């Protein structure tokens, strides 16, 4: 069954067409990665899918049109992490992560014992317990990224959308973050949609890849089919070799012989 269905989405800003008739579907439990050059429209697509940006065309969660959902219903179905999340000055890690529980708390109410328990579980899972009272703006890039991820996880939704969750991270933390998403996905049977720039990691972790270029889907399918050296070279304007190391796909940029 489809968990999220996107039909004929078109977004334009002024005369520029950002997304041109994009349709796709995400089956329940899938890990889908959206890749493509800078400015291809990945973030735009993700925010449309999260119901945060209006478009012509429609987005369904299950069989409900996302436009008919209240923000609260939407936030109980899907959690979304933007590419550049806001970092309010002076807020504590615990206070920040707890904001993810907002969809379950009445507008004028405060959080209950259950919310605090979930907060503590997630903080522990992400090894953030010791940061609970630190302010968000005092953290390193990687620690901050883990806090953003924690906020998404306390939202406890079956569907999560992450916009470049690994960009600020070093090699080890990139892997740890993706391993963690993978682990939690197996535990909670999550559906994950993620945009990424690292094609090797996208190839290794996702079930399926969509390659976006200039607002259109250039290719979609299993990682080994989409990550084709000729296609990637053309789209990215780069010199690329695709190799297999053990069973993992690896994309390697190469230096031109003429330079």
């Amino acid at each position, binding site marked *: 069954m489809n968990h999220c269905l996107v039909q004929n989405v078109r977004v334009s800003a002024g005369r520029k067409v950002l997304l041109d008739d994009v349709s796709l579907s995400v089956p329940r439990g899938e890990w889908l990665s959206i890749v493509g050059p800078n400015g291809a429209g990945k973030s735009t697509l993700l*925010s449309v899918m*999260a119901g*945060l940006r209006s478009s012509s065309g429609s987005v369904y969660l299950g069989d409900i049109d996302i436009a008919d959902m*209240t*923000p*609260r*219903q*939407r*936030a*109980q179905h899907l*959690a*979304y992490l*933007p590419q550049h*999340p*806001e970092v*309010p*000055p*002076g*807020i*504590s*890690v*615990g*206070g920040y992560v*707890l*904001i*993810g529980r*907002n*969809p379950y*708390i009445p*507008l*004028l*109410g*405060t*959080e209950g014992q259950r919310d*605090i328990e979930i*907060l*503590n579980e997630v903080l522990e899972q992400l090894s953030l*317990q010791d940061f*609970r*009272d630190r*302010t968000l*703006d005092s953290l390193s890039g990687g620690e901050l990224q883990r806090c953003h991820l924690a906020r998404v996880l306390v*939202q406890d939704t079956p569907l999560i959308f992450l916009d470049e969750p690994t960009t600020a991270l070093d090699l080890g933390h990139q892997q740890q973050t993706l391993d963690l998403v993978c682990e939690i996905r197996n535990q909670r049977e999550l559906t994950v949609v993620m945009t990424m720039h690292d094609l090797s990691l996208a190839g290794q972790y996702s079930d399926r890849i969509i390659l976006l270029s200039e607002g259109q889907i250039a290719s979609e399918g299993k990682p080994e089919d989409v990550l084709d050296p000729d296609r990637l070279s053309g789209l990215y304007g780069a010199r690329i070799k695709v190799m297999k190391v053990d069973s993992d796909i690896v994309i390697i940029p190469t230096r031109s012989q003429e330079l």
Partner: protein
Amino acid sequence: MSKAATSSGLRTPERLRASVILVGAFACILAMGTSLAIGPAGINKTAILRELIDRLPFIEMESGLSPIHKSVIWEVRLPRILLGGLVGGTLAVSGASYQAVFRNPLADPYLLGAAAGAGLGATVAIVTGSGDGIGAFDLVPVLAFLGAMGAVIMTYFLGYSSGARRSPSALLLAGVAVAAFLTAIQTFIQQQNVESIRQVYSWILGRLNTSSWTEVKLLAPYAFLAILVMLLSRRALDVMRLGDTEASSVGLRPQIVRFSVIAAASLGTAASVSVSGLIAFVGIIVPHVVRLLAGTSNRIVLPLSVLFGSAFLAFVDLLGRTLVSPAEIPIGVITAFCGAPFFVLVLRTSQKALT
């Protein structure tokens, strides 16, 4: 896991500590108590204490005060102190709320034109002779209130017709325009009626010296309603710190929160200025001190602003009526005198996380 870690893990983050509330409450009582005890009438201080205890239920205690002194306490000092506390608390929490919804540390309660509107209303009432600032049928507070609310509503419509749905700063700019426009009219009327210029100025500089129980009863319902709405929104205002898009992605409707909090803060501000005139800077000083001392979460800043705002204004009013006694310094002059240097200090340290 150690026992300490377990108990700290069960805490709600950003919660308001009881100790901080106690400090705030103590500051209030101290400021108000001192203010009640000091004054030109030179009433015996222990007698005042006995007089207060006498009014408690089930306790009889003879204070030995003359009827005149009793009426100074009950009809002059007490309503004035309570009014000051009410106005201070309302202005401070309104300022904190405006700062939260606009995500701008320099927002103040007069931001959306409330001050200019109230000024115009009061000026009209004074020059037409329909109010002299005293008595139950005084039109000054009524017209000041209508002027303030009218100005805020005007700002709101103007702001939304010019794009405030997309960016809240359009609302701020509309506020600047409305304030300039209304101040122009007010100045014109004032120039045409030089004979009442003293009265207009005394109103504009803020005053609590004419306060009686009438004003307290006039202000209290509006102030309590406004403060209640703002305090109940304190958690939602913390979510709003993520900005509209992310707030909406965690299920909030930012426009609704913004509208109801602005409405409450404007109502509180309008009601306050209508009885006390324009008391500047309380809405900026108090929330910023609270943030520096106790943290930036609105769950902490809003309730503490009420307490410290009350204490601050009660204290400033005490200074105003004792420093050059028997004359009085207008309260707005003192708040601005303390506020302006403080404002600069805040600007200098504003890297230190103030919103």
